[in-house]
């Protein structure tokens, strides 16, 4: 490990915050999905960094990262499928225009 753990964690925190910002402010659902991918990446980074530097079973972190990647892929697939279906029905991909269930 060339660089200290804290730096990686800070980096991952920043990445996570950026992703969360995107999730909070983007109107486009695809944009939100992309931002979620950022957040998941940050989480993965954390997992690996911890497993690399602290855990005694070094595979664990990586394996969970693999699981996260798999889940992220499924999330993206299903999410994007929903976006497509939504677009086909409502002709929009903006969150605030999809408000049929509001109130």
């Amino acid at each position: 490990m060339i660089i200290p753990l804290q730096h990686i964690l800070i980096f991952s925190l920043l990445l996570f915050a950026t992703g969360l910002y995107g999730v909070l402010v983007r109107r486009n659902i695809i944009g939100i999905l992309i931002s979620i991918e950022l957040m998941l990446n940050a989480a993965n980074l954390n997992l690996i960094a911890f497993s690399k530097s602290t855990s005694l079973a070094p595979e664990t972190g990586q394996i969970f990262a693999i699981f996260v990647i798999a889940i992220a892929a499924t999330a993206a697939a299903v999410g994007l499928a929903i976006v497509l279906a939504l677009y086909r029905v409502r002709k929009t991909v903006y969150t605030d225009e999809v408000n049929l269930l509001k109130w």
Partner: protein
Amino acid sequence: MEILELFSKIGIYATMALVLVFALGVVALRNLFHCALCLAAVLIGTAMIYVALHAEFLAAVQILVYVGAVMTLVIFVIMLTEHLGGKTIRQTNRQSPAAIIGLSGIVVLLGTLLMKTPWPVTAKALDAKVSVMSLGKALMGTYAFPFEVISVILIACLIGAIVIAKKDVSEKGPS
């Protein structure tokens, strides 16, 4: 050899900086396609950091799954819904000031927390090498059950995504 290490450090920090810049691009750019490309860059950069953390297998998987498959999917969907992205349409909602304030608060607090926490970094862990073989054995041994569950989830999501995105059969026909 210290110089080489220095080079590596510089490289890693530069990569991190670039990744952050691209991440900002992901959330801030107006053009969604550019966002997706930035995301691809972020993912590749993260993969490079994985390599620096000696997780080559994970890096390869990251690129293979994310860049090869997920990004393609995202770009496909962007293209299918593309013509909405006119210049005059707002791409962010009105809560961005609040979000910036809140998130910067969280970053500051968590950052201080991170820096102050004494992490139990062990030399043994730092020296440990994770080979692909050991990863495979762990996947097939200790984590066999979660692995199978994940595969079931994958299949279910695959079918679900197809069903959701498929055009209704009744909708077909000459229009």
